[in-house]
């Protein structure tokens, strides 16, 4: 169990980009994918996906990461294409006929060309939605995230918790692996269990000691925080000071322009 998408330190224009610009791109993606969708929306989605591909390329993110993303999403895509193929209510042209089973507005025995196309459009919509956040995660360090959240006036305690929790994830991965190995030594092999046996039996012997160990660590963490004066009524310093550069405004302009272009293309 290891995260596929994690921050990679590189010197690229996207890594140097102000985190708030990247956040704007992520949020605009969310707005764009939540627009009501029609089968004719493919160009809009492809334009935004093109922007994402450009950002991924400039950030020099390896192609295999994109492959991993596709591997995660392929099940969803197959599900969407099949389901829409069978149930799309404006489907007229039969592609494959397995029989006839009319249920309200759909004939569930026929896969229609319009339905499959709509499934493909929805899959591209999901891909557009999921391609933005990995870019942000892989090009933004924890300290930059902390500073960006502070700039957004997120309460300091919340920012501290999020960034601390992010840094603790490595420790939890290690603890998880150690407990898993210890249980394997006791002939309790989670990897050999099927999904239902796993759900009912596997997690208790792992999660219970993990939570106990974590809460004990939390006590030490609490003492460390108090010793370091967390919560003292003084303005804390920032690890990283972020300043806006002309390049940030140019990238922001590009992202906003593409977003406006997509919106016009959609509603025109």
């Amino acid at each position: 169990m290891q995260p596929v998408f994690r921050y990679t330190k590189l010197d690229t224009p996207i890594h140097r980009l102000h985190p708030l610009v990247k956040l704007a791109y992520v949020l605009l993606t969310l707005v764009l994918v939540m627009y009501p969708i029609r089968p004719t929306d493919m160009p809009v989605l492809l334009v935004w996906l093109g922007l994402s591909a450009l950002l991924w390329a400039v950030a020099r993110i390896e192609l295999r990461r994109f492959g991993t993303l596709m591997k995660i999403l392929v099940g969803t895509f197959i599900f969407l294409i099949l389901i829409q193929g069978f149930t799309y209510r404006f489907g007229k042209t039969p592609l494959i006929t397995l029989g006839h089973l009319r249920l309200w507005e759909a004939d569930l025995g026929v896969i229609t060309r319009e339905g499959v196309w709509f499934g493909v459009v929805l899959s591209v919509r999901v891909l557009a939605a999921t391609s933005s956040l990995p870019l942000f995660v892989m090009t933004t360090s924890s300290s930059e995230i902390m500073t960006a959240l502070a700039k957004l006036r997120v309460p300091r305690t919340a920012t501290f918790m999020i960034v601390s929790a992010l840094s603790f994830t490595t420790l939890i991965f290690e603890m998880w692996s150690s407990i898993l190995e210890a249980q394997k030594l006791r002939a309790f092999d989670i990897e050999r269990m099927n999904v239902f046996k796993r759900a009912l039996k596997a997690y208790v012997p792992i999660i219970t000691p993990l939570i106990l160990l974590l809460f004990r660590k939390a006590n030490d963490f609490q003492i460390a925080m108090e010793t370091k004066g967390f919560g003292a009524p003084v303005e804390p310093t920032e690890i990283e000071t972020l300043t806006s550069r002309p390049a940030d405004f140019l990238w922001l302009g590009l992202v906003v322009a593409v977003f406006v272009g997509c919106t016009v293309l959609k509603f025109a």
Partner: protein
Amino acid sequence: MEQKVPEKVRHSTNRIGGVSIAWVTLYGALCGVTSLVPIFPYIGGGGYVPLTTPLSAIAPLLLGPVGGVAAALVGGVIGMFIAPAAYPLQVVDIFLNAGLPAIFVALMLKNARWWKVTVPLFIVLGILGWLVPFYVPGAAAGFGKVPEPLYFIMAAIYWLPSTIIAATPLGTRLMPEWVVSSKRVRRYGGVFLTVLAALFVWWLPWTRPYWYLFNFSAELGVATHLAYSWWVPTLSAITAVITIPIVEALERSGLPKIEGAIW
């Protein structure tokens, strides 16, 4: 004569709902990390419910209502950073996958006092769950017509029993007692029912944004209601099975107790 100087009392930033933020942070980190652990498949394929969801649901039982919800939200944010592909709706998914299960369990846990909030909230969510997306935005956004009253009844399965539980002495008196009972069977029952009532209602807001995103057909909407009617109790049972050993271990651990938690 010694004069008593008034002490300047400052609101502590080190605690949330009576829980140290160190505990909240570490439990949040755990919830986040477990977004990589698939626990239960979606019906019809296309993904898995991560271990984050049951762990977020039980957070209010382990850390108290406020601390638990805060930990679940931190977990949602961390999950979004660790497994971004599993969070296509980004901030919305933080609430759907982690925040809402914790909020609903917290409400059920404190239902003796909060039923006046819980009951209307469940009714509103139930009606919204029935309306969205097939009536609002409905045909304007390309959604089909659902067969009535079948669809209303199917949606009611997910909110009406929970609302009845929350409004009756079972939810206002018995369940809050059972979750802290020293009798194991009663405790299992209490935790299972608390989580069940919460997760049934959670299922409505959890699914609707995705139905909208995937443009579900009316037939699929009805079928999904039917198919998930056994799925939610199974997920609740798994959650109860995970919770009780943790609670018992915490009781024996000698760790400082948390106000509002069930251990």
